[in-house]
C-alpha cells in the first residue's frame, strides 16, 4: 500500500509526522522514554558525569589489578604497614605487609620497591588501597541498597495507588511518619540498634538505609500509577476479566515505572554518600574495611595537625567528591529532561 505523504503547507500535519528516522532503539523504548535517554546523552554536563561514573566502574572492576590484595581471601581488608599511630606522607617506602607489585607499577615506576602512593593514615592503613577497593564497596552498597529500596518502594507504591481508598490512606500515612525523621539520623539509629544483633559488617547500615529509603519511590510511582490506571487499556483489561494482580504487574507497572527507574539509577550517588557519612561517624563496618567513609574517618583525630597530614583528607575526599559529582551532573541533566516545561526542546 502506498503511503500518502501530505504536501503543501499544512503545518499541523507536518508536526505530526516523524522528523527523523525511527531506529529500533526508539521503537523499543517508546517516544517518551527515548526522549529522556537521548536528552541525557546530548547534554555536555551529563556526558562529563557519565565519563566520571564510567571511570569509577573501571576502577571497581579492575581493583585486583590496580591494587593486588595482600590477603586474597579477604581483599577488603586494608593492609597495614605496622601499627604506629602517626600518618606517613605519600611516597614513604612500604616495609611490612607489602602489597604485591601491581603491573602498572613495573611499567611506569620501574622500581622493585612498593611505596605508599597516597600515604598512610592513622594506624598505617594504606590510603591508596582503601580508595581503590573502597570503589567496589561503594558500587556494591549503592547497587544493593538502590535496587532493594526501589523494589520495595515500587511494590508498596503500586499497591497503594491501585487499591486506593483506605489501603492508600494507611500506607501513605505510614510513609508520612517514616519521612518525619531526617533520613541520616533515622538510619544512624537503626544501624546502631542492628549492629549488636548482626555484628559489624555492611549489613546493618545497608538495612537501615533500605528501611528509611523506599518512601520516596513509593510516592513517585503512586503518582504515576494513579494517572496510568485511568487509561482505556486498563479498563479494557478489566472488562475482559483479567485478575487484579495481572493488571497491576503486566499492564500498569511496566507503563508507569520508567521515570522512577531513571531516578533510582541516579540515586546510587546519594546512597553511597549516606553510607560514607554513616561509616565516617563510625557506624557499620569493622575498622580497616576498605570504604571511603572509613578512610576519611581516620582523619577525625588529626584535625589540629591537618596542615602536615593533608593527604589523609584530600585523597579520599577528592574521590568521594568526584564520584558524587558524576552522579549529580547526570541527575541535573535528567531533571531538565523530565521537566514537563522543557518538553520538545531537546
Amino acid at each position, binding site marked *: 500500500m502506498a503511503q500518502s505523504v501530505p504536501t503543501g503547507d499544512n503545518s499541523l500535519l507536518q508536526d505530526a509526522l516523524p522528523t527523523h528516522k525511527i531506529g529500533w532503539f526508539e521503537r523499543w523504548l517508546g517516544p517518551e522514554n527515548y526522549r529522556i535517554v537521548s536528552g541525557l546523552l546530548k547534554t555536555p*554536563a551529563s556526558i562529563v558525569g557519565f565519563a566520571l561514573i564510567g571511570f569509577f566502574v573501571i576502577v571497581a572492576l579492575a581493583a585486583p589489578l590496580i591494587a593486588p590484595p595482600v590477603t586474597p581471601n579477604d581483599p577488603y581488608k586494608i593492609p597495614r604497614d605496622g601499627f604506629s599511630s602517626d600518618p606517613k606522607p605519600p611516597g614513604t617506602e612500604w616495609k611490612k605487609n607489602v602489597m604485591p607489585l601491581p603491573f602498572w607499577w613495573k611499567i611506569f615506576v620501574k622500581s622493585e620497591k612498593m611505596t605508599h602512593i597516597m600515604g598512610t593514615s592513622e594506624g598505617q592503613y594504606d590510603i591508596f588501597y582503601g580508595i581503590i577497593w573502597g570503589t567496589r564497596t561503594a558500587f556494591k552498597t549503592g547497587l544493593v541498597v538502590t535496587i532493594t529500596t526501589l523494589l520495595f518502594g515500587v511494590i508498596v507504591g503500586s499497591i497503594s495507588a491501585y487499591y486506593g481508598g483506605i489501603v492508600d490512606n494507611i500506607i501513605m*500515612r*505510614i510513609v*508520612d*511518619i*517514616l519521612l*518525619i*525523621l*531526617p*533520613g*541520616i*539520623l*533515622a538510619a*544512624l*539509629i*537503626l*544501624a*546502631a*540498634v*542492628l*549492629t*549488636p*544483633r548482626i555484628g559489624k559488617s555492611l549489613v546493618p547500615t545497608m538495612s537501615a538505609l533500605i528501611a528509611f529509603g523506599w518512601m520516596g519511590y513509593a510516592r513517585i510511582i503512586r503518582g504515576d500509577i494513579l494517572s496510568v490506571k485511568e487509561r482505556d487499556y486498563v479498563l479494557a483489561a478489566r472488562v475482559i476479566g483479567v485478575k487484579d494482580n495481572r493488571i497491576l504487574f503486566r499492564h500498569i507497572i511496566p507503563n508507569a515505572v520508567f521515570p522512577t527507574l531513571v531516578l533510582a539509577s541516579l540515586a546510587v550517588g546519594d546512597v553511597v*554518600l549516606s553510607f*560514607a*557519612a554513616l561509616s*565516617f*561517624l*563510625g*557506624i557499620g563496618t569493622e575498622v580497616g574495611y576498605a570504604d571511603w*567513609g572509613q578512610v*576519611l574517618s581516620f*582523619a*577525625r583525630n588529626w*584535625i*589540629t*595537625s*591537618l*596542615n*602536615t597530614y*593533608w593527604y589523609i*583528607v*584530600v585523597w579520599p*575526599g577528592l574521590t*568521594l*567528591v568526584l564520584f*558524587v*559529582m558524576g552522579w*549529580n*551532573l547526570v541527575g*541535573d541533566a535528567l531533571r531538565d529532561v523530565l521537566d514537563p516545561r522543557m518538553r520538545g526542546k531537546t
Partner: protein
Amino acid sequence: MVTFIIRRLLLVPVLLFGVTVLIFAMLQLLSPIERSALYVKDFPKNEKAVDGIIKLYGLDQPLYVQYWRWLVGTVDTVGVRHGGILYGDLGYSRTSSIPVAELIANRFPNTLDLTLWAVGPVILVGIWLGVQAAVHQNGFIDQAARVFSIVGTSFPTFVFGLLFILIFYATLHWLPPGRLADEYMQVVNSDAFRHYTTLITIDALLNGRFDVFWDALKHMLLPILTLSYISWATFLRVTRSSMLETLRMEYVTTARAKGLSEHDVIYKHAQPNAMIPVVTLAGFSVVSLLGGVVITETVFNFPGIGSAAARAATQLDVVTMLGFALFNGLILIVSNLAVDILYAVVDPRVRLS
C-alpha cells in the same frame, strides 16, 4: 483559614502517635534486659535483680501494655514514677552518665545557636541571590550560582568540613574549632554573666560582652558554613526557577504595561508569588539541618545534640539515641505544622480549598 488550621492541628496527635510507635518498634529490637536500661542507671550484676527489674517495669508483658508503660511510666509501691516519656523521662544515658533529658537540655542550646546563625543568612542571601539570578538570567550571578550549586551539592558535608579545617584552621590559623576559647568560657561560666536565653551569642550581646560574642562567632563560622552551604545552593536554585516562572506570567506583563517601575514589578508583584515553593523548601531545610548537625558537629567537635547523638550511636547507646530521635521528631512535627500554616498565609489558594 481557621478550618484549615484546625484540620492541620488534628493531624498532630496522629503524627505523634506514629513517631512514638516507630521509635517503640525500634526499641523492640533490644532484649528485655537491655530495655531495662530505660529505667535504671546501672544494671545490677546479679540475675535475680535483673529479673526483678524486668517484672517491675513489665518488660515481659504484651506489647500494648509495654507501649503504654513506656509512654506514662510505672508507679512503684512507694508512689514514685519510673520512666514515662510523656513525663520527660527518656532514660539514662550510659555514654554521658546523666539522664537523656538532661543531656538534651544541656546540649540543645548550642545546636540552636548554631542553626539559627545558619538559617538567617541562608534565607536572606540565598533568596536575594536567587532573585538576582532570575532577573539577570544567564548573567554573571546566574552562571556563578549554577556552578556553585552543582559543585556545592557534590561536596559531602564531612569532606567540606574537613577541608575547611585543613585550610582555615590548620594552615591559616584564622578560625578555631570547638565552642569558645578557654578565657571566654570562664567569663560565660562566671556569676557576672547572666544567662537570659542560654544561647551564648545572644546572651553575650545582652550582657554587653562583645568580645565573647565575637569569639563565639569566630568558633561558629566554619560550622555555620558547613551546615548551610547545601541549603544555600538549594534555596538559590528553587528561588531562581520559581522567580523565572513567575516573571513569565501575564500579570507581570500587565504590571509592566501599565508603567510600573521595574523595581516594583520585581519586588512587589513577582517576588511574593515566587516565594510559595520557597516556603515548602524552608520546611525541608529544617529536616536537612537537623540531619546535618550530626555530621557537622562531629567534624568540628561542637558540643551540640548532633555530636552527642553520633557518639551515642558509635558506642551503641540505644537509649540515648532513641531519646534524640523522639526529640527530633517533636521538633519536626512542630516545624512542619508551622510551615503548613505559613503556606496557607502566603498562598490564598491553599486556605480556600
